[in-house]
């Protein structure tokens, strides 16, 4: 039960070489093709096409009601699509009921069988497959070790803590060795500390098993930490698919920029676009904005600039002249320990959020409310959005 057991590897570095989606010769493990699912008048999933590759850790991210859970349930077989098709390992899943599909799901409520002990829960799927008794026992022992529940084999679910139950649910879903593991909000019921630990455990587990994981979550941090790729969903559509860093640093819409992390969005009119840089005129910044952007946007068109709070510098003394320079006064701030977030009211009246790392414990001149200040950001810190 050690709490400090984190993978001794740099996830970003190791997984950066893993990009099967970039290899056109590879056949995806799962393919959604124009899948639509309606409930009455409501379209839960709207013409979704998506490929998930072998050994990938894929996240479906979006607010509640965006269709992410429905998409997962379509794959598990609990719902049937109204249009489109889903294939698994090249095989069309249409007409195959849940018990015939080689995927296993870890339910948000865990759905552990209350009348069965931990080991009987884990053995449930194996027994159903007709695995010989001896092999079941071996596999259950292996699973208990994998999720570190060795001493609790005989317990009933109601005798376990929330975290332990979560791990039984995980072990039960992995035990039959499915082609793919579906995790529906697997960490939602855990408290913050345990959730963070479990995120890293999930990554370690997924890498050890080499199994394909599909996680559904509304928690952007959970998706960012665990997944190789994230699909951001909105109202039944997928709005963007990419690596966590891509989705965070190069969102393709205001919706994605706003949903993932904190962002300041400035509306402006394009004054120039030379294929390298874009300049914008906006009432929020009299000197104008400048950002790196290779799209040649039409002069005069409306565009938005998205700047993350941590990419905005806050100065108490006037910085040197240049673009992306705004003056204002501190309206509010929130001290978070590691970071302090400042809310700055610009001369135009709108407020901007800027975050500063608290690099040292003591500062000569603390920033207080109503202090005059200047905000700047580098042209490569901002992202230009057209929708």
């Amino acid at each position, binding site marked *: 039960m050690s709490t400090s057991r984190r993978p001794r590897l740099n996830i970003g570095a190791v997984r950066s070489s893993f990009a099967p989606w970039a290899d056109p010769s590879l056949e995806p493990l799962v393919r959604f093709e124009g899948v639509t699912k309606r409930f009455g008048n409501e379209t839960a999933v709207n013409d979704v096409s998506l490929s998930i590759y072998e050994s990938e850790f894929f996240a479906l991210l979006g607010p509640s009601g965006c269709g992410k859970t429905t998409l997962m349930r379509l794959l598990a077989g609990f719902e049937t699509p109204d249009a489109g098709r889903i294939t698994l390992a090249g095989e069309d899943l249409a007409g195959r009921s*849940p018990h015939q599909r080689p995927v296993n*799901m870890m339910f948000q*409520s865990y759905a552990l069988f209350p009348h069965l002990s931990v080991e009987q829960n884990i053995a449930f799927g194996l027994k159903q497959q007709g695995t010989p008794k001896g092999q079941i026992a071996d596999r259950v022992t292996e699973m208990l070790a994998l999720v570190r529940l060795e001493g609790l084999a005989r317990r009933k679910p109601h005798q376990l803590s929330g975290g332990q139950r979560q791990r039984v649910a995980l072990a039960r879903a992995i035990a039959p060795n499915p082609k793919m593991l579906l995790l529906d909000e697997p960490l939602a019921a855990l408290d913050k500390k345990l959730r963070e630990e479990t995120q890293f455990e999930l990554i370690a587990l997924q890498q050890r098993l080499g199994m394909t994981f599909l996680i559904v979550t509304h928690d952007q941090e959970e998706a960012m930490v665990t997944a190789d790729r994230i699909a951001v969903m909105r109202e039944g559509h997928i709005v963007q698919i990419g690596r966590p860093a891509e989705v965070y640093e190069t969102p393709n819409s205001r919706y994605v920029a706003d949903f993932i992390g904190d962002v300041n969005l400035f509306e402006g009119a394009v004054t120039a676009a030379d294929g390298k840089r874009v300049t914008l005129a906006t009432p929020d910044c009299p000197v104008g904005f400048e950002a790196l952007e290779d799209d040649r946007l039409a002069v005069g068109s409306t565009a938005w600039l998205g700047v993350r709070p941590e990419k905005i510098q806050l100065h108490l003394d006037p910085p040197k002249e240049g673009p992306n320079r705004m003056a204002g006064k501190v309206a509010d701030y929130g001290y978070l320990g590691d970071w302090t977030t400042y809310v700055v009211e610009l001369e135009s009246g709108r407020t901007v959020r800027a975050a500063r790392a608290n690099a040292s414990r003591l500062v000569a001149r603390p920033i207080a409310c109503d202090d005059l200040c200047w905000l700047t950001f580098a042209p490569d810190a901002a992202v230009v959005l057209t929708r």
Partner: protein
Amino acid sequence: MKGRPRTGLAALAPFLWLGVFFLFPFLLVAKLSLSDTALAMPPYAPRVDWSAGWAGVRAFFAALDFETYARLTRDSLYIASYLSSLMFAAVATGILLVIGYPIAYGMSRFAASTRQALLMAVILPFWTSFLIRVYAWIAVLKPEGLLNTFLSQFGLPELNLLNTDTAVYIGLVYAYLPFMVLPLYAVLEKQDQSLLEAAADLGCTRTQAFWRVTFPLSLPGVGAGALLCFIPMVGEFVIPDLLGGSGTLMLGKTIWTEFFANRDWPAASAVAIAMLATLVIPIVLYQRQQTKMIEAGR
């Protein structure tokens, strides 16, 4: 401090109720069972001679004996009616389970609004007197009754069911069905549907999921329903009396005969006490089951 004696009294109230209406009558019956028959009014002896004071009370206790119980074991009629009652109750409980489970299961699968209406339909017969409902069965089962009229319409042979054991089973199953359906429905309705999805996900067909998940999880309801029906059915009187024949042996009838026909109050009391003794085990089981269910529900 002022409120305390009042709450103490409130806590005593149920015990007082049980004492007056349950324990005291029980002790009376127990005392009767230890007495002997006598040609007197009331028809038993001994009676306490209060005028003799303490000596009279002692003489009374000295005269009590277990003779009547010994008589029960000697007379095969009593033993036969015991076994027959247990048999009736056990078979009827089995039939009730087979009929009641699908009804409760079906009810629990409907939408919440429909379930309320169905539940109402199960409870509705209680609005009519039990006696009238049993009499209604006489009208159905008698030789020129509804059943035979219906059968003769289709040219089928007549059935003479009234005053047979079959009629008693029909009456028992009919009268006790709600007591079987309601506890079963209570557990089935509470069941988490995601458990069935989990079972399907792990490779179960619907039938397999029923036997591996739904049924084992409904066992507390099966136990509660079975005991709730079995215990009162052992002592059932009205149904065997009105629907059964002269050959139908059940404890309720035996007690009635002893009490009213034979005027043997001690024998009637002894049969009643002995019946209670045999039912103590299922009653305790039922109580434990209930406590467990309440604890599990928390």
